[in-house]
């Protein structure tokens, strides 16, 4: 891991090998690619590009998927009532 880079994944710092792609990262995290959206530095990636996009030092990655929510999903701001 001599060529390690630091990135942010869903707000958490994470060390990765140089040359790691989005696809590699998803596999490392055991995330099924068909059910997620990936945003790299605010750019939403096409699923077919996951294996082509290399991560760079300081990149911010957001991995999102569908969760339960309906007419009543309130943003969690950690605010009490």
């Amino acid at each position, binding site marked *: 891991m001599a060529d390690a880079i630091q990135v942010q994944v869903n707000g958490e710092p994470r060390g990765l090998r140089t040359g790691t792609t989005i696809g590699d990262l998803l596999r490392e995290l055991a995330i099924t690619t068909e059910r997620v959206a990936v945003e790299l530095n605010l750019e939403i990636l096409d699923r077919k590009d996951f294996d082509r996009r290399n991560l760079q030092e300081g990149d911010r990655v*957001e991995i*999102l998927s569908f969760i339960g929510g*309906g*007419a009543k999903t309130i943003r969690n701001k950690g605010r009490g009532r």
Partner: protein
Amino acid sequence: MYDDRLVIAGREFKSRLWVGTGKYKDFAETKKAIEVSGADVVTVAVRRVNITDRSKENLLDYIDPKKYVILPNTAGCYTVEDAVRYARLARAAGVSDLVKLEVLGDEKTLFPDTAGLIEAAKILIKEGFIVLPYTNDDPIVAKKLVDIGCPAVMPLAAPIGSGLGIRNPYNLKIIMETVKVPIVVDAGVGTASDAALAMEYGADAVLMNTAIAGAQDPIAMAEAMKYAVQAGRLAYKAGRIPRKLYATASSPIEGML
């Protein structure tokens, strides 16, 4: 029941009850309630994947996207930018261009910011989204949303999660009369009669989450809502009798002694 399908933007829907997937005890209960409700449209939110605990199950393991129309929402978005961002993420995560667009104005009421809603809808429609907007019970805003290309509008009955039922039946009726696209009454339903009433007024569908998920027995309430929506729809199609102040005898007077 006779065939009475709802069509929005060329898509056909079997059920006129649409349900949310939030606030259930667990995914098993979510799945069961949705099955019992007979709904074929289910709303979902888009959120960060839990990367620290990958043991967490996925909603779509329980709600088969081949069986249900997955309708992502932009719940929790208070700005045009956030709503547009979440809609794009939902499209990237999913399989369709459908989005239930919410731009909220205020955390206490969760009322829609209708100016922001129209702005966000314009941007998304230009990008090819099928925008189903969660809006206020305002006939003018509803008409504007249709004019910019929304294939349906989703006015609220009452504030989200309030269970107050239809607060403004006259506004909803005006929307139903003036807007020539399907109307999905969204949010505020408390119990079965609220849903039936919305359908009797002429709503094309009702969307709810809390009324089912928050009931003491969500599975039983899911079933109640199924019948309420069906009964309300049938009553609307059947055409109710006019209200009169005085009695009208049901039995003939002729032949009496």
